[in-house]
């Protein structure tokens, strides 16, 4: 018997995952700034405080480092916190606890403890938040051994990946692109999990492979539609999980298509696309490449406020189409 499937928004899917986990397991709780009666800066926690009470949906003071540390301590000692940062930009205040403590404690202590912590944070630009509210810092976390890093694209994945993240015994960083919150998609009722180690091929194609996560996967799919109308069949792979990266799926695709385009929003250099390109360049798939690996990343600039500039600072559908076209036609 499969669960009924409804159309659900991305934010609602996340909320549903939280509600399921909290209903199932007393140890799971949500904490963060304004997650209670305000419902979260992006209305993700919504009415959870009404449903689970203030002890399970905890408003913290504006203390990102302290909040993260409290979550780490709680996770070490029997609870399963889901800690929300209002913007991933504010993780800069909490890196100490996330990176030096949560990610390392198990290893540093010889395996005698686990830190079952999920840190949720909205990422990316597109809402005029300017330089301190629009960063894409995925690559930082993906570089840290001991962390897992997730970035869903669809409401279905958002729910299933978040349930998997909460189940996971180790710290998981969960990025949510702000532009996705209001997107909708089919989501089954009840519990299901999407595993934390598998990329998803969102569209099959033979001419080139496009790898893109989060909102960039959406843009890549839109680009693929346009490309198809020109006779270029792009395969679109959504990693979903950035650490550990499922490079096998990417490599299999590239072995067939011989061309690789990677799209991501964070600054191009030292961004997530660098790792994907490098991993292909050093593996078996390298021999199958018919063209250089193309990366389309964010501009090397803080995110500007003015809308046209903001748009110009990150890859757009038309940029993906243009790059894919060049790559597929061997003009790169």
């Amino acid at each position, binding site marked *: 018997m499969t669960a009924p499937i409804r159309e659900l928004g991305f934010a609602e899917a996340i909320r549903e995952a939280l509600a399921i986990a909290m209903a199932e397991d007393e140890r799971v709780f949500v904490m963060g700034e304004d997650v209670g009666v305000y419902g979260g800066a992006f209305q993700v926690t919504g009415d959870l405080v009404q449903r689970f009470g203030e002890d399970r949906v905890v*408003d913290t003071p504006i203390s990102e480092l302290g909040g993260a540390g409290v979550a780490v301590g709680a996770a070490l000692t029997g609870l399963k916190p889901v800690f929300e940062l209002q913007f991933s930009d504010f993780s800069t205040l909490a890196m100490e606890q996330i990176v030096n403590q949560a990610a390392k404690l198990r290893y540093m202590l010889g395996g005698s403890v686990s830190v079952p912590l999920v840190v949720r944070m909205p990422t990316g630009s597109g809402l005029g938040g300017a330089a301190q509210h629009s960063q894409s810092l995925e690559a930082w976390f993906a570089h840290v051994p001991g962390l897992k890093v997730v970035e869903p694209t669809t409401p279905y994945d958002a729910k299933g990946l978040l349930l998997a993240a909460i189940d996971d015994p180790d710290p998981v960083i969960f990025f949510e692109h702000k532009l996705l919150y209001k997107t909708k998609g089919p989501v089954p009722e009840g519990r299901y999990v999407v595993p934390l180690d598998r990329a998803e091929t969102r569209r099959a194609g033979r001419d080139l492979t496009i790898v893109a996560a989060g909102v960039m996967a959406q843009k890549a799919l839109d680009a693929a539609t346009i490309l198809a109308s020109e006779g270029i069949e792009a395969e679109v792979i959504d990693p979903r999980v950035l650490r550990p990266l499922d490079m096998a799926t990417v490599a299999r695709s590239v072995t067939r298509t011989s061309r690789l385009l990677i799209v991501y929003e964070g600054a191009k250099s030292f961004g997530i696309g660098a790792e994907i390109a490098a991993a292909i360049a050093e593996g078996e798939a390298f021999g199958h490449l018919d063209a250089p690996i193309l990366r389309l990343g964010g501009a090397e600039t803080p995110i500007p406020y003015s809308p046209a500039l903001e748009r110009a600072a990150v890859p757009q559908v038309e940029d993906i189409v243009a790059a894919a076209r060049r790559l597929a036609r061997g003009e790169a």
Partner: protein
Amino acid sequence: MTAARAEDAPPVAVANRPAIYDRVGAGGLREALRRMHLIRRFEETAEDFYVRGKSYGTMHLSIGQEATAVGVCAALGDSDYVTSTHRGHGHCIAKGAEVGRMFAEFLGRETGYCRGRGGSMHIADPAKGNLGANGIVGGGIPIAVGAALSAKRLRTGAVVASFFGDGANNEGAFHESLNIASLWKLPVLFVCENNQYGMSVAFARSTAVASVADRAAAYSMPGVTVDGNDFAAVAAAAFEAADRARRGGGPTLVECKTYRTRGHSRSDRNRYRTKDEIEAWKARDPIERFERELSALGVATAADAASLREAVEREIADGVAFAEASPAPSTAELMRDVHTPAAAAPR
């Protein structure tokens, strides 16, 4: 509007004229009133832009808090610094910014204070000593301490006022900054605008002490709580703190109890407070009160106030026109100002 009510209000006894008014002087008081109106009208106009879908991003209005910004800046000169917050329009105008360039920034235009790169949350006016609004709660506090270190080391005689909210007082940056400023006896005014909420969380739910000013003792610095809706009270505290700072007496923590009558930002549904509470605070509007006082004291008659408000309206209208006529930045200049061009380098 404020004018009508000002005339109905009971007259303020001249005997009660706050001593600080003598120091500010009649011209200074009228200028303060003008700036308060300018802030109010700037923000109402900005709000209107939003409602009409003319602007982008989010914004944080300080309507109801004008006496704090203007009261503190009354004690500062152009060579003194301020660091500001996400709710920074008031600080910016109080420190002498032009509303035209502010509107332009708000609308993301090339003529804006940040050439459209910063928007509402980063408006700055370094020429007037405003080191910028800040998108990071508490982000400006240590920067203010650094500016004070420069002032001390370079012997400029400048003081620095660091504005921050009640929510920000629970950030580690607050603690580290106040400790350093006190240790090094730096000329800083730590100005907490305690508007009772940090987004949605009431002060008592975020802060384990009755008053932010009570925390000053933890840094061996004077702490004072004043009515942030009373220009005189704020200005008196600011002058005292600035005097102490200029004398080499180190920093002061000034807590101004006030209230934002608008939501936290665009997306606020006001679920965390009551209409009654908001109305009660609206009745304590700092501008009406100040205007009433100046009128009773004969510093600004009803007619003066009216012509001042008219001038403000013109300034706002001109500012809007300037901003709307200004070009958006060219995407060809996306990469400009990531780094300082070698030619512009100080060295």
